[in-house]
């Protein structure tokens, strides 16, 4: 698969590539009887036009926001700015405000706990379900694709639904544990459990994605390895430990790093469930960024918070790309 792809990639390009290099070598080379082949032939211009709209879009809707966040974070960018058009430069004042705020430490800690807790839960349950669905049985494919549903629903719908389920007085979860004689848990109203509740909901949302990718990885492990292992007595847990896990590791690193990148920026679920409360117990960096910008209208401080998010995401992006390259090399 890899080699054919490579082949097809180079094949159509032979003529264009040759023209390109000839043009680059410059005047010394005779034109070879094809004087119209150069950099700016109609053909080459048409080819570039295929990519221009997308390039413009990416520059305007991804490039510009990143740059704008950096400049905003160095300006006093407030409601006033929208009336006067003035946003005076203030150096690193916004960063000082951010690091000095009482909420910075807790938000950073919560972001870490939320991310690690969500990823760990999604991954363990996802791997267990993926291993289960590796068995052959009737309706396997159908059941597995229905499992995608939580992932496809709007996150705010998931938040609304879970808010009714987790309601302290009459939510179904507390009624359920009440049947076993347990005290009702104030899932979303107590600062000491709210973060756990939010993590549990995010685990539920992320399981389908983990199952899908890990199932794909499991399917790619050759059956012969297990057959050979079985001859040597490696079955059950030993088979998992010595065959499945080493072979799955490249996929695992991709799932985990992507999970980090996407969990760190989660906003919908927390806003829908707790709005960052109770008593700021579920504040994260992205909630801070949103609230500074769109609730307090301190866009400069909000941008400073989101720049921290960008830096963390980029770190994971680099890890992701390295993990992926290793996955290919192996």
């Amino acid at each position, binding site marked *: 698969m*890899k080699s054919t792809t490579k082949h*097809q990639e180079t094949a*159509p*390009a032979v003529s264009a*590539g040759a023209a*390109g290099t000839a043009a680059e070598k410059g005047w010394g080379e005779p034109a070879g009887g094809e004087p119209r082949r150069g950099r700016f032939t109609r*053909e080459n211009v048409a*080819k570039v036009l295929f*990519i221009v709209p*997308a*390039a413009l*879009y*990416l520059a305007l*809707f*991804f490039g510009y926001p*990143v740059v*704008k*966040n950096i400049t905003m974070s160095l300006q006093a960018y407030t409601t006033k700015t*929208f009336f006067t058009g003035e946003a005076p430069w203030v150096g690193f004042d916004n960063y000082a405000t951010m690091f000095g705020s009482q909420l910075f430490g807790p938000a950073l800690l919560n972001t870490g706990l939320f991310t690690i807790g969500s990823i760990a839960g999604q991954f363990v349950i996802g791997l267990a379900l993926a291993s*289960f669905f590796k068995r*052959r*049985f*009737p*309706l396997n*494919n159908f059941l597995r694709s*229905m*499992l*995608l*549903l*939580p992932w*496809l*629903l*709007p996150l*705010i719908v998931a938040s*609304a*639904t*879970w*808010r*009714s389920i987790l309601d302290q007085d*009459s*939510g179904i979860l507390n009624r359920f544990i009440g049947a076993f004689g347990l005290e009702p848990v104030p899932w979303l109203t107590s600062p000491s459990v709210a973060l756990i509740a939010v993590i549990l909901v995010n685990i539920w949302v992320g399981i389908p994605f983990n199952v*899908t990718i890990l199932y*794909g990885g499991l399917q790619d492990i050759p059956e012969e390895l297990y057959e050979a292992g079985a001859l040597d007595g490696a079955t059950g847990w030993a088979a998992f430990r010595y065959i499945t896990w080493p072979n799955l590791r*490249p996929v695992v690193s*991709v799932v985990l790093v*992507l999970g980090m990148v996407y969990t*760190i920026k989660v*906003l919908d679920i927390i*806003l*829908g469930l707790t709005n960052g409360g109770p008593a700021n117990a579920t504040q994260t960096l*992205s909630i801070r960024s949103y609230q500074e*910008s*769109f609730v307090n209208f301190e*866009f400069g401080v909000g941008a400073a918070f*989101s720049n921290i998010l960008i830096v963390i*995401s980029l770190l994971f*992006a680099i890890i992701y*790309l*390295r993990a*992926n390259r290793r996955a290919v090399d192996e």
Partner: protein
Amino acid sequence: MTSASAVLKTRPSAHPRPGRPRPWARPTGSGRGAINTTLGVIFLGIMLFPIYWMINASLQPSGNTLNADFFPWNPSFAGYEKAIADQGGNLVTSLIVSLGTVLFSLVIAAPAAYALAQFRFRWINIALLAILISQMIPGIVIANALYAAYNDVGLLNSIPGLILADATHAIPFAILILRAFMIGIPPSIVEAARVDGAGLVRAFMSIVVPISRNSLITAGLFAFLFSWSDFLFALTLTTTDEVRPVTLGIYQYLGTQVSNWSAVMATAVLSSVPAIVLLLIAQKYIAAGAIGGAVK
């Protein structure tokens, strides 16, 4: 080979491999199969219970329905009546924005995907890397900057403004999914048309687009679902109730209407309809996208 192209090649192809045997085709002990199917149904039941509960709660009589029964023995549609009265317009707004996002995303992404798959550009790997990284940029970063920019150009509270912003969820994903398919199109079929005198654009429209139908459907479905689910841009780029997607409607319900759960849940059910319908009727496209979605 640079990392970007390597990344894309490790991803499974965008479409289910046709030759793969169906898992249950090989006869196994039928007793065991039945036990596993039962277990599978139980696991699925646990995972989908919240969705069942949402539907159940939406059919309870109005008022504080949190004390709902396990089954809506006396279904009441009062919640739906209120939901449609309050949120009907928002649902239509969401639908228009989502369809607009599908159209806009495909028009932008398909030619770019083809170029990245088939043309020889020197900077192709850099472009792919940029697309991968763009998917990792937090939405709040985009929202922060777009709010100021939209305020200047008058795109706040507008449907085109939301379409342009929602396409940030869809375009990088669509380019990657479409490119993964288009890389397999044999250049010879396009060249044959070129020999017959078709220009590059005509060859693209009359040959590449029809061949890529399935991957275009997959990319389009996900563009729809991403845009339909969008909450962040709805929340930040609208300030009045002129243009209000239903996700924002639900959020505002949560703030004001928690005493009327059946209406909240009915709106939630109505907002889930696209995902449920698409999963049932377009399963293979969704599965293809979910696997390609390793990059989502």
